[in-house]
């Protein structure tokens, strides 16, 4: 464990660690643009230069490994003079368009200009103007805002592996570009926007939508596949505007796939089911939620009263949170102790998409082929509840005795797209069916009761990803008018007091759910910091 001194503070470092990373780990603030812990080190921005005793010149902190007994001066007059010079140099051709730039508020250049720069420009000549470019399906490049840190270039080479971006030209005419006819269209392309320290690479989807300082963040998990990528939902006034990655070293590191990034659109989808329906004389009519719930409970009770034990089933969707699956399972088992629990269709049989570093061939990111987030978690809940269970394939085949007996049940959807298979199980084709879903399907038009449900961003709970990690997620917004969270509906049906609370339910579910911790949201920064100019 080498020990180094930074500005009179002694810190323990890992052997071979760079000075900058060691300082960041110990809460010592140092400016940097080109350094990113997930990418290779190029030391091109030069703002992290520090003085090291015994070395006559300044050295880049991001590229200098620590040595036992090293004495570093990060805020000596020489280092500060360098920071000021680098800032002035970077701002020479940078347009002063912060008010219309989407990065403003989370821009390194803006922050460092306050902290390390000077308040005025000595540059009197005309600024270089470079055109803005459309580099890919999701990304827009504003070349005149670029500071040539080359993070995006390294990302496309080392993480997504396509190498679509490159540095064109030299010196003052240097700029980021794509090769002719080869746009940045891989499934990780959105990440270059996140790693860009300035507003040079912007997301077309978020462009001009909202200013970043107005957004609030809820820690969540990706709903698109079983990878369980950790994300932040950025929302304001009940609307989600974008999704940003949340660092988790063991799951997604700093990156998320584009499917995850744009999955928030389902929340405000105009097709969302918002009207509860009930069947009357063979056709569905509009009804209130309470009336629909009454009819659902009454209908299921009648099925149990007329049939024998085991005539009820519940299709638990792999989009449900574990807590919700637990509550619905309990409700069905209360009505009928032998109720059959079925895991809904696990979509996506495709192969995993693997991304490799184009230089070393090492695997860097995987997009899972299983396109539901919680198949493992719901299976675990079903095991915990015990009793008769079946997979959806067995339910479709219908040759098991338990499967043949069903007369009515509860079906949960909640998928991000159409999920109803062409060959419906015999049990789901007739009988008394209650359906909870967020998008309209063929099945929803034929069932006895339709209950509008909530999307994942509107409720809390936990999901188990393909590695078997149980990850809790927070709610960001409230469901649209007419919809109710699944958890609240089950609490109501079970006759329990209060609203659905993920952590409370997890406690009664026992291990391993009990020990799932709520996600750690980003630390709140001070709302205003007064800067003396």
């Amino acid at each position, binding site marked *: 464990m080498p020990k180094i001194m930074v500005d009179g503070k002694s810190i323990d470092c890992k052997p071979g660690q760079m000075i900058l990373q060691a300082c960041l780990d110990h809460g010592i603030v140092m400016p940097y643009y080109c350094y990113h812990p997930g990418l290779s080190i190029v030391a091109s921005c030069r703002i992290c230069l520090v003085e090291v005793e015994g070395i006559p010149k300044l050295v880049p902190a991001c590229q200098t490994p620590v040595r036992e007994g090293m004495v570093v001066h990060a805020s000596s007059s020489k280092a500060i003079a360098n920071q000021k010079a680098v800032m002035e140099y970077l701002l020479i051709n940078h347009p002063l*368009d912060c*008010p*219309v730039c989407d990065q403003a508020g989370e821009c390194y250049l803006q922050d460092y200009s306050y902290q390390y720069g000077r308040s005025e420009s000595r540059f009197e000549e005309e600024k270089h103007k470079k055109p803005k470019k459309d580099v890919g399906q999701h990304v827009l490049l504003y070349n005149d805002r670029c500071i040539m840190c080359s993070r995006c270039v390294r990302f496309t080479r080392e993480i997504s592996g396509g190498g679509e971006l490159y540095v064109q030209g030299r010196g003052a005419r240097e700029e980021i570009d794509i090769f002719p006819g080869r746009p940045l269209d891989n499934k990780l392309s959105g990440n270059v926007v996140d790693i860009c320290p300035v507003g040079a690479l912007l997301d077309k989807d978020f*462009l*001009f*939508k909202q*200013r970043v*300082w*107005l957004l*609030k963040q*809820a820690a969540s998990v990706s709903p698109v596949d079983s990878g369980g990528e950790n994300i932040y939902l950025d929302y304001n006034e009940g609307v989600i505007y974008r999704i940003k990655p949340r660092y988790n070293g063991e799951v997604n590191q700093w990156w998320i796939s584009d499917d995850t990034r744009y999955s928030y659109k389902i929340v405000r989808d105009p097709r969302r089911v918002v009207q509860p329906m009930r069947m009357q004389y063979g056709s569905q009519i509009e009804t209130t939620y309470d009336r629909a719930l009454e009819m659902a409970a009454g209908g299921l009770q009648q099925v149990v009263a007329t049939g024998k034990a085991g005539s009820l089933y519940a299709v638990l969707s792999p989009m449900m949170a574990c807590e919700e699956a637990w509550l619905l399972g309990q409700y069905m088992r209360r009505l009928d102790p032998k109720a059959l629990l079925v895991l809904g269709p696990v979509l996506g049989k495709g192969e995993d998409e693997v991304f490799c570093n184009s230089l070393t061939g090492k695997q860097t990111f995987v997009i899972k082929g299983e396109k539901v987030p919680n198949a493992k978690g719901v299976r675990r809940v079903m095991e915990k509840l015990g009793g008769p269970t079946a997979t959806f394939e067995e339910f479709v085949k219908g040759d098991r005795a338990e499967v043949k007996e069903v007369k009515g049940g509860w079906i949960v959807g909640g998928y991000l797209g159409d999920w109803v298979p062409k060959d419906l199980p015999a049990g789901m084709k007739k009988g008394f069916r209650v359906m909870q879903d967020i998008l309209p399907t063929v099945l929803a038009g034929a069932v006895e009761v339709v209950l509008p449900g909530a999307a994942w961003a509107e409720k809390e709970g936990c999901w188990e990803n393909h590695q078997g990690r149980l990850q809790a997620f*927070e*709610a960001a*917004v*409230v469901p649209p008018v007419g919809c109710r969270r699944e958890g609240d509906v089950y609490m109501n049906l079970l006759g329990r007091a209060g609203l659905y609370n993920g952590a409370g339910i997890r406690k009664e579910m026992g291990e391993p759910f009990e020990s799932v911790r709520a996600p750690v949201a980003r630390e709140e920064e001070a709302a205003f910091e007064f800067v003396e100019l």
Partner: protein
Amino acid sequence: MKDTEIIELQEPRLSVADQFYVPQMLVGMGTTLKHMFMTLTGKDRVIQYPEEKREDIPVVEGGMNLRTYRGVHRLNKDEGGRVKCVACFMCSTACPAHCIHIEAGESPWADREKYPIQFDIDELRCIYCGMCEEACPVDAIELTHEYDIVGLTRQEMIFDKEKLLKMYDQTVEKEPM
């Protein structure tokens, strides 16, 4: 919505004297009577609005200086007659009453990146503090000296982009930028 976003408000507690109401009623009545006698003796004056207006009376005699008065907003236009606003949201960020709602879009002009597709100010919610004017980096939003705006419905008092630009045309002669 998270628990941290919920604010719980407590009703103010009344003292024992306040709970009887009568003493507080007498205090209020006293104020009314005081002003009645002051008007009768000529110490207070009643302005016969709208025949008589405060801006026509000298400030020392109870009038007001219209030049520093903060009235209804206007959106300024540039030389080409285009809206000057670049939809940077600075005004709506600075607004303590949250009465400015902007929807930004890509501008149809080459010299500008962004412009407001929609720009609504709720004039009933506004407290006329002038923070929006202070925050604007391009001097696009200004408060005029107009105060006698009326509307028959609340909806009419939500001024949209067209109405705010019309306000500019109406006041630009009297109050140049």
